[in-house]
C-alpha cells in the first residue's frame, strides 16, 4: 500500500486517482474529528469538506518533508479554532445541547462526552487527538504547535481528570 505522502506527490504530478485514495482514507476520520468537537453534524461535514478543499488548493505548496497526517490534522485544527472563534462572536458557543451519534452506545457515549466537555481545552484536545485521531506525541505537538513535554503533561492530567469525572458520574448513576 502506498503511503499518504507518496499519494500526495502523485496528486501533485496530476494523478487525480491519488487524491481520491487519500480522500477515502481520511474522509471519515476528518469528519469524526469535527463531529466530536462540534454540536452540528451538518457544519462538521462542511468543515471536513473545506479541509479537503484547502488541501486541493495547496497541493502545489505541499512538501513531502511534512507528514501528510500531521498536515491534514493541522489544517483541520485551524479550521476548528476559526469556527470556535466565529461561534464565540455569534454567542453560540456551548449554547446548544450536543447531539449524540446514533452509532454510539447512548449511556457510555453520553458520559464520555459530558466528562470530556468538563476538561480544560488544552488537556482535552491532546487526549482527543491521542485517543480518537491516534496521533503520536510528536504529531500532537506539531499539530498544536506545543512542546512535546507539554503534550505529555497535558495527556497525563487529562486522563487523571477524566477518570475521576467518569467515576463520579458512575457513582451518581448507581446512587440514583
Amino acid at each position: 500500500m502506498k503511503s499518504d505522502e507518496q499519494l500526495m506527490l502523485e496528486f501533485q504530478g496530476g494523478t487525480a486517482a491519488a487524491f481520491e485514495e487519500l480522500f477515502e482514507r481520511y474522509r471519515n476520520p476528518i469528519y469524526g474529528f469535527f463531529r466530536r468537537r462540534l454540536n452540528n453534524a451538518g457544519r462538521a461535514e462542511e468543515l471536513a469538506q473545506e479541509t479537503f478543499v484547502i488541501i486541493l488548493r495547496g497541493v502545489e505548496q505541499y512538501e513531502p518533508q511534512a507528514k501528510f497526517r500531521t498536515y491534514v490534522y493541522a489544517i483541520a485544527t485551524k479550521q476548528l479554532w476559526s469556527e470556535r472563534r466565529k461561534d464565540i462572536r455569534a454567542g453560540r458557543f456551548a449554547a446548544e445541547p450536543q447531539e449524540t451519534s446514533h452509532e454510539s452506545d447512548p449511556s457510555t457515549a453520553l458520559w464520555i462526552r459530558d466528562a470530556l466537555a468538563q476538561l480544560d481545552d488544552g488537556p482535552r484536545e491532546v487526549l482527543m487527538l491521542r485517543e480518537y485521531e491516534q496521533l503520536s506525541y510528536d504529531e500532537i505537538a506539531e499539530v498544536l504547535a506545543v512542546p512535546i513535554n507539554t503534550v505529555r503533561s497535558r495527556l497525563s492530567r487529562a486522563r487523571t481528570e477524566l477518570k475521576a469525572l467518569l467515576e463520579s458520574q458512575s457513582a451518581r448513576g448507581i446512587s440514583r
Partner: protein
Amino acid sequence: MTHREHPIWEEELMPYFDGQLDEAKASEIANHLETCEDCAAAVADAKGLSQQMTEWKVEDTSQKMRESTLTEMRLQERSKRSRQRWAWWTNRPVWAYGLTGAVAALVLLTVSVPSLLRSRESNPPIIAALSSPSEAVVTQQEFNKIQRAQPEAPSGPMIIRSARLAIVTKDFDGSRARIETIARESQGYLDQLTAQGEVGSGRTLSATLRLPSGRAETALVELRKLGKVRQESQNSSDVTSQYVDLQARLTNARNTEQRLTDLLRERTGKLPEVVDVEREISRVRETIERMQAQQKDMNNKVQFATIQVTVSEEYRAGIELSSPSAGTRLRNALIDGYHSAVESVLNAALLVLLCGPVLLLWSAVLIPVILLARRIYRMRLG
C-alpha cells in the same frame, strides 16, 4: 517516593502505555510493572479509560459530501490543466518578456509612424467625405465613425443642447432642400424628416437635425433664413455631474467584475459558491453594459445638439374662374329644397318634443287659475 526508591516516574507510564518510548525504556518499564502493583494499576486504568472512550463512535460521512469534494477536485484539475497550457508563457524568464516587449514596440513604431505622417498630410477621411459637394446628408454609419473619433469624456462641462424652430415659408420645396444642405454642411445628419399635404394646399414639413454642438448656432442662423420665424425655443442641460457619477460607477463595476473573475479563477469555495460567483459576474456584466449604453447615449447627446424644425407653407386661396351649368344648379337647388323641407319637419317635431312637457305643465297650473278668475269676475258683475 524518590527516584532511587521507585525507578519509574509517573509521567513515563503514559508514554509507555501509548507506545511512545524507545525499546530499551519500554522493556525497563515492562519489567518494573511485574513487581510494582501501583504502576501496573495506573497502566490498567489508562487502558480501561481508552476502551471506554472508544464507545463514543461517529457515523460515516454522507455520499453528498464525497461527491461534492470530488467534483471540486475535478474543477481544480481542469483549472490546473488550463494554467499549464499557458505555462510556456508564464514560466518564461524575465529577459524573455523584455525581449518580446522590445520586439512589439519596434513593430508598433514601424507601423504607426508612416501612418501618422500620412494623416498629417491630408484631412481625415471622414471630414473629406463630408466636405465633398456630391455627398448627400451624412449617413448613420459615418456619424458613428465621427462619434468614435471624438474623445469619450470631454474635459469641459458637458452640456446637452436642443432647439425648436417653427417657420412659415413661401418656398416650401426650396426649404426642404436647404434643410438637407444645412445638415450636411454642419457635418451632422437628418435624424427624421416628415412632409405632409398636397401641392397647392398648405404643406408642412417636420425635421429633426443632429448637428455637432459647436456648429449648432451657425446652423440655427441659416435655418432662420428659411422664412418667417413664428416660434423659437432653446434649451441647455448641464449633465457633467451625472456623467462623472456614471463614470465612477462604471469603474467600480469593472473592478468588481475583475475581482469576481479572479475569485472564480482561484475557485476557493465549493461548487454552489462557484455557481453563485458566476451568477454575480453575469449580473455585474449586465450592469456594466447598461451603464456603457447610458454613457454612449450621453456622449452622443452632448456632442450632437438636437434641432427640431417645423416648416409650414404660406397658403393663399386661388380664384375659381369657372361656374357650374344651369342643369346642375337646378338639380342642386331641388336637392337643397328637399333637405330644407325634411329639416323643417324635423325641427318642428323637435320643438314639440322639447316644449310639449313644459306647456302641459303650465297649462295644468294656469287654466284652473284663469277659470277661477273669470268666475269671480262674473260673480262681481252679477
